[in-house]
């Protein structure tokens, strides 16, 4: 990782010697915008992640529910969310649906949209986790005399949680990146702020490089943590 960074830096510096006039000063004077945007991105992503976990869990369970309309509803929700681009969902949801319901706060709407988007993918992760528990284990638990609740509490959930934590962490990283699309409805997150700085300073590379680095600062630790979790919880059934 260190080697990689050093190499990149080396290349950028030799590049700059060539003929590119860097405008770092102009961009540096806007550093407050970068910081604010970065913090807003973190806040929105975290809030959306929390809500999406609830939505994802509810949907995963709904898909296994004996009550058929509930199952159907869950399927429809998932097909729509996973079959359309997030950008389209944001535009429709904010300018059509939220408007019809009179919800004006675009930050709230943005968080809800992100949560609904991630929720569909999370429900798949959870469902796969639940179904990965071998039938025979549940048999074993039954034979011991555990009640249904006990089986969920002591056998299914501990294993499901270990199973889904790595992909969930990955989903969180995706959410952070996807939050950049909220710039389209003027949510003042990281990407929009960088774009504004670019608009004022005309220094595109100098505005967008910190943007990329800022996102990496968030997603890299998550992906490393996710890999560590995977290793820890890997065991043969």
């Amino acid at each position, binding site marked *: 990782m260190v080697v990689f960074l050093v190499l990149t830096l080396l290349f950028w510096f030799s590049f700059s010697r060539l003929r590119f006039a860097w405008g770092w000063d102009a961009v540096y004077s806007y550093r407050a915008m970068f910081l604010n945007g970065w913090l807003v991105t973190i806040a929105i992503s975290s809030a959306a992640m929390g809500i999406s976990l609830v939505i994802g869990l509810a949907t995963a369970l709904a898909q296994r529910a004996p009550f058929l309309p509930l199952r159907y509803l869950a399927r429809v929700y998932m097909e729509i969310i996973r079959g359309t681009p997030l950008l389209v969902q944001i535009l429709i949801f904010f300018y059509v649906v939220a408007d019809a319901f009179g919800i004006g706060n675009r930050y709230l709407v943005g968080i809800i949209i992100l949560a609904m988007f991630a929720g569909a993918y999370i429900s798949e992760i959870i469902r796969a986790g639940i179904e990965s528990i071998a039938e025979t284990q549940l048999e074993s*638990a039954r034979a011991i005399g555990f009640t249904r609740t006990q089986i969920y509490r002591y056998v299914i959930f501990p294993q499901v949680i270990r199973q889904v934590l790595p992909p969930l962490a990955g989903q969180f990283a995706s959410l952070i990146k996807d939050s950049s699309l909220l710039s389209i409805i003027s949510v003042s997150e990281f990407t929009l702020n960088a774009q504004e700085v670019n608009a004022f300073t005309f220094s595109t590379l100098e505005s967008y490089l910190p943007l990329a680095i800022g996102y990496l600062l968030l997603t890299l630790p998550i992906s490393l943590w996710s890999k560590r979790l995977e290793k820890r919880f890997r065991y*043969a059934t």
Partner: protein
Amino acid sequence: MRKDFAMQLNISGVSKSYGDHVALADVNLRFSDIRAVALLGPSGSGKSTLLRILAGLEIPDAGDITLNGDRLQSDENWLLYHRRSVGTVFQSFNLFPHLTALKNISLPLEKVHGYLPDEATALAMQLLSRFQLSGHADKTPAQLSGGQKQRVAIARAVAIKPRLLLFDEPTSALDPEMTVEVLDLIAELRQEGRPLLLVTHEIGFARKVADQVVFLHEGKVLEYGNAQQLFEQPSTPEMRGFLDKVLRY
């Protein structure tokens, strides 16, 4: 010691089908004093089904079963109570992979049988050392060999002081070395006098260890009774043919 474990088993007219497939057809058995019962027969003869019914995991379509005067009922609450009084060991995947060997034994004691955590742990450690597994107490199933896993599973079944032990082909998934360590353990349990029902392909073992034998064929009980007698003189051609095949090599 024998007196405590005395177990009467009556099975009359029990049938069970899965869709079109008839697993058990009118099974009748009478044992006034079960000791080590071996359930034998070719594949698909209904041995596992019968065992699972006795374990409280399936409900027969028809018929009656009484264990020491207790009639097996189809009510879920009753079955829960029944399962807790019976210890079952399956062919594989008995243990919970996210728990240590110790926890696998002590958790049911705590949560199902109301032991205090310290008592449960102490009892679990006791059994583990009795089965020569104390060094493995803190290992997860992934770190144990097949034979060790099965022995922990047996410890778990024994820990609850069951009135009946059921084994569904406990060594079929093991290689010969590990098979022996598990069979040794079962033989030990039989020495203690615990009533146990064993579905197995290890006919040699059954010959040595079983007190009683039940021979199933296509869902019906063709022969049952004293082990020695049946092995020496099988009365039905099916059993004779079966024994001939399995004991050939």
